[in-house]
């Protein structure tokens, strides 16, 4: 499950993208940032 972080209170919450009317349960904000997934990412140094 991908975690999202509230843009205002910075708390991590579990969200289902299919749900309508997304709102932070703590502060009511509707701005969210997707957290970086905990996987190793290989990048070319070019």
């Amino acid at each position, binding site marked *: 499950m991908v975690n999202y972080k509230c843009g205002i209170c910075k708390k991590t919450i579990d969200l289902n993208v299919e749900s309508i009317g997304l709102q932070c349960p703590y502060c009511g904000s509707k701005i969210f940032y997707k957290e*970086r997934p905990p996987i*190793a*990412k*290989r*990048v*070319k*140094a*070019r």
Partner: protein
Amino acid sequence: MVKIESADIKEREARLVISDTSPYFVNALRRAMLREVPKLAIEDVIFYENSSPLFDEIIAHRLGMIPLPTDLDVLVPREECTCNGEGCPNCTVRYTLSREEPGMVYSGDLQPENEKWRVIDPNIPIVELFEGQKLILEAEAILGKGKDHAKWQAVVAPGYKYYPIIEINQDKLDEDSIKKAIEICPKKILEEKEGKLVVKDIEKCTLCKSCVEVVEEGAIQVRGDETKFIFTYETDGSLDAKTLIIKAAEILENKFKELEKLIG
């Protein structure tokens, strides 16, 4: 036959005077140094965490450009390695970087597996971390050539110029024209000695001919010797200057031997 009249070779820079040759030979040497001499540089970066202000790809590119020490007697190119490109100590050098405190992350923070491969210049800034930001990664460095990417170019500013020939006809010069010629020279290589115009340091002449223009026609003649060259270059520290030119010459020799074999 090619002659080296003088060679001032330091750790990271060199100046050679090469004579009895042509511009084509010196240019071939210059191009071999730029494109063909192998050097170690970071190719793959594995990011475990990056909450810095820069994208992963930007940081990876910056890491790739950091000069790393290269030992051509120990390392082999990955495509020629017995590990078939898997990445073993013969072809790959690994570094780790882990930083969680705020502040500038420098190239010196890259920790090699073996101290022998510690970066040459530890003061190259990579990215600045602020409060709560982290950077945790591993980097793999391999041998490559300048023709594939500029990060694998060990030589810096290789260049050659004709050796200057300055002929002065003292009969056509008077005190006033001597003064003008000395003053106009941008490299200040002319001086007056016992009422005559003499050249102090001919190798600094850039063949601009400014002195020719301010005196009587024929008083000074400036030209380049098309069989003698001043060849200068620097390195970024990954290879020393002597190894670099020797390796370039070996590569050129091998290329011509290959051609000879193909022609039969």
